[in-house]
């Protein structure tokens, strides 16, 4: 397992998660997350090399629906939820970069 969590790691993770941390919060979360990850090192007490991962406890496969159109939501209801709507669309401030 990797080295201890650094302040830079936390800053990077916050950026990825679209959260802004103050300097104090950065310190606090570095310590707290570090403790949790430290505890997680107990998983290394077992040799898990040959164990397959399980992402989900649900064993059913091939769950599909038929290709049938069902009613959509009323546009006015949907746009009424929006913080800002213009011209029947969701309005956002300018986008700085292209989508990946």
């Amino acid at each position, binding site marked *: 397992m990797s080295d201890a969590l650094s302040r830079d790691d936390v800053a990077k993770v916050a950026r990825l998660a679209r959260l802004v941390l103050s300097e104090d919060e950065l310190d606090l979360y570095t310590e707290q997350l570090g403790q949790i990850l430290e505890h997680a090192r107990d998983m290394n007490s077992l040799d898990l090399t040959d164990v397959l991962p399980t992402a989900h406890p649900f064993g059913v496969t091939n769950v599909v629906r038929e290709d049938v159109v069902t009613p959509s939501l009323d546009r006015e209801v949907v746009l009424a939820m929006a913080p800002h709507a213009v011209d029947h669309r969701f309005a956002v*401030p300018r986008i700085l970069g292209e989508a990946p």
Partner: protein
Amino acid sequence: MKSATQIAADVRSGTSSATAELERTLTVIEQRNAELNVFLYVDVEGARAAAAQIDARVARGEDVGPLAGVPIALKDNLCQVGVPTTCSSKILDGWRPPYNATVIERLLDAGAVAVGKTNLDEFAMGSSTENSAFGPTRNPLDPSRVPGGSSGGSAAAVAADMTAVSLGSDTGGSIRQPAALCGLVGVKPTYGLVSRYGLIAFASSLDQIGPFAKTVADAALVLEVLAGHDARDSTSLPEPAPRLVAHVNDGVAGRRIGLVRELFDGADESVVASVRAAADALRAAGAEVVEVSIPELALTLSAYYLIAPAEASSNLARFDGVRYGLRVSAEDVTAMMEATRTAGFGAEVKRRIMLGTYALSAGYYDAYYGQALKVRTLTIDAFARAYQRVDLLLGATTPSVAFALGAKTADPMTMYLNDVFTIPTNLAGDPALSVPFGTGEAGLPVGVQLLGPGRSEARLFAAARVLEIADGRP
């Protein structure tokens, strides 16, 4: 307080009415909600209209369903059309869903009356209902203590006799733990037994909706209504609801029950005593109780606190200020998303989002998330092996009785350790329930936990009923 079973019988027979039952509920809420902070929203008008409609249907001679006129409280992470749904978060403040959760449709179809939305730890992340943007909920049995969490509001609603039954959601113990701390029956069903459609996700591979009730029979009654295949949830078991109420009094004669050392080791003395007494009671009712050890369970807390945050970090990405809920304005869209999420989420939610983001990020995935998935495999296999030898497992639900407000908020790890007995079954996807048995410190209730393999709910209810009777609630 009448049981839900009794209310439904009275309403169907005309001995009582949905309106009368609702008004009694509204009166108790009026009396106690300010002190306990159980309900975030009470849908007085909607509930009165629904109750009146049920009474009219009864008057016309219609069968209004197994929950006829039963007032029910709903955890505020369940979507109900037109009713504010917040997850106890500022980020969803004011949002009213345009659709119903499947469980709410099923409750309403069964004649239940949805009274309102109950407080929770923000996005169901917590074990005390102190992580709510709208203030903590207090334990009705001792308001200086927490009701447990994250479904603390739904537990308190039943414990305070506001409603006979309520719904919670359980990702790592969020139904069973508050049930134990409030002296209730709380059920975490088999993964896939109850549709998650309309449950605002915390950790999708772990979340299940389940009931709180004062009696085993009431819990079975509600779960029977909730269960059964739903085409809107890909992880819904492809089979109809099992018969549960009919099996509540099946007893445990001939059952083999494993008392799991890892599921009570380290708990308070009174808790351990209750678990051992429960084992004796089951033995007295004809079960064979054997002590078992499942060492793999020691690792489940670590695995859980990587898997659940990882899924949550993705599930909670959509709260970005674009389509619904809170927006904090900023110059560009990235800054707007950051400002919105920073202002909208509380500290525990941020902590878990960052933990999960880290666990999934490049370079750390294998060491953390990947490793946790392997522990999950071990957990599933270990339970499966245990269930080859025994029909059910027995342990504690929580390490202690209800603790004081503020006692565990300083250090996240201390709070997380509260979930150590409840987490394993979520990882395995198996069912478990907590049933009150005995008392501990300050006369507060202790919950013991019964666990079973997938789809063993009927067996669990029958065993819980044995304990209920042995604990003096015939």
